[in-house]
């Protein structure tokens, strides 16, 4: 059997650095299956106690927005400054608001 490494899928690695924080993308790696991906991720991304929990996700399973449609896709948020608290004028001296 001639198995090249490119047969191994790519996995995206997410690491929770400590309790109370979200998992954050750390990088990617190749592994033949999920269990090996977890073990490799442990060795590759948490050599200095950077994590208390790891997720691995097959890269092929990620659906991403396209960079080409960046503008139309995110534009609807751009003209709605009233979604931010700083949009509103409040008389001086009013507290806890």
């Amino acid at each position, binding site marked *: 059997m001639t198995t090249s490494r490119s*047969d191994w899928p790519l996995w995206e690695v997410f690491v929770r650095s400590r309790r109370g924080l979200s998992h954050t993308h750390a990088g990617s790696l190749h592994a033949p299956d999920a269990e090996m991906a977890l073990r490799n991720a442990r060795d590759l991304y948490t050599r200095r106690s950077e994590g208390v929990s790891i997720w691995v996700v097959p890269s092929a399973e990620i659906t991403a927005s*396209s960079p080409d449609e960046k503008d139309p896709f995110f534009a609807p948020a751009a003209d709605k400054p009233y979604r931010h608290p700083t949009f509103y004028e409040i008389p001086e001296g009013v507290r806890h608001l």
Partner: protein
Amino acid sequence: MTTMAPDTEAAYEPALEAAFDATVAADERVEPRDWMPDAYRASLVRQIAQHAHSEIIGMQPEANWITRAPSLRRKAILMAKVQDEAGHGLYLYSAAETLGTSRDELLDKLHAGRQRYSSIFNYPTLTWADVGAIGWLVDGAAITNQVPLCRCSYGPYARAMVRICKEESFHQRQGYELLLALSRGTPAQHAMAQDAVDRWWWPSLMMFGPPDDESAHSAQSMAWRIKRHSNDELRQRFVDICVPQAEALGLTLPDPDLTWNEERGAYDFGPIDWSEFHEVLRGNGPCNEQRIAQRRRAHDEGAWVREAASAYAAKHGEARA
């Protein structure tokens, strides 16, 4: 973008190129799925691949001393460092792969001598003190080179460099501490440290690449903000950092022309023997053949592990399906 017919894409190219130029000019990062000029992509693959290969080949000269480390403390440190180098290679291979190349292609090109690694790793590690000199000087030069790369215009490369730079700082300090212990030891230990520094100093200065006026890729890489400083600028920065560090070690640097230049506010240093650099680059360094042969052997001898893991995954996948 991938669904566009080639002729349509060609028609859009000036607009795409303008958007790319604007991103770079604004000091924003280019990300894998963005349009980028073919030459930018090729240049990054060349540079990141060379960088990744250097990390992997760089494991060899130091691993040479693991079994002969003088104490358990030094042995544990050296194993951690060599393991880090493997990790750095993997971060960088991943970054290169985001540009459309594959791990197998990169390794094949390394094994066939079609992609390079840093010529510094073609020098032998003759004594234990070489482990110290590599940490202090070789990793020191690498850090000087790599810190500006954390702001490189290509996102995945910049992110890999941030992680690498954090980890490299231990590499440099362990080397310095190792040399300090030898320098303050017996006369024979001191002499061993001095000999290692004498051998590694000039090759470390060559790590910054040819002088600016002879560097093939520099100008374009600076325009693309892959590179932030010229080879000579970084080399000067490194020399200025090392001189006081050598004094604190109680060791000398093997350059009679090394003098403080009040006017420039920097150290003048002697001419570099570039003929040696080009000889090593051509494959005629002391260890070129040995390094590649060892890399190929390691790859071949690991084949059964990769095959077994794939076979297990296939079987396991079937059982679950």
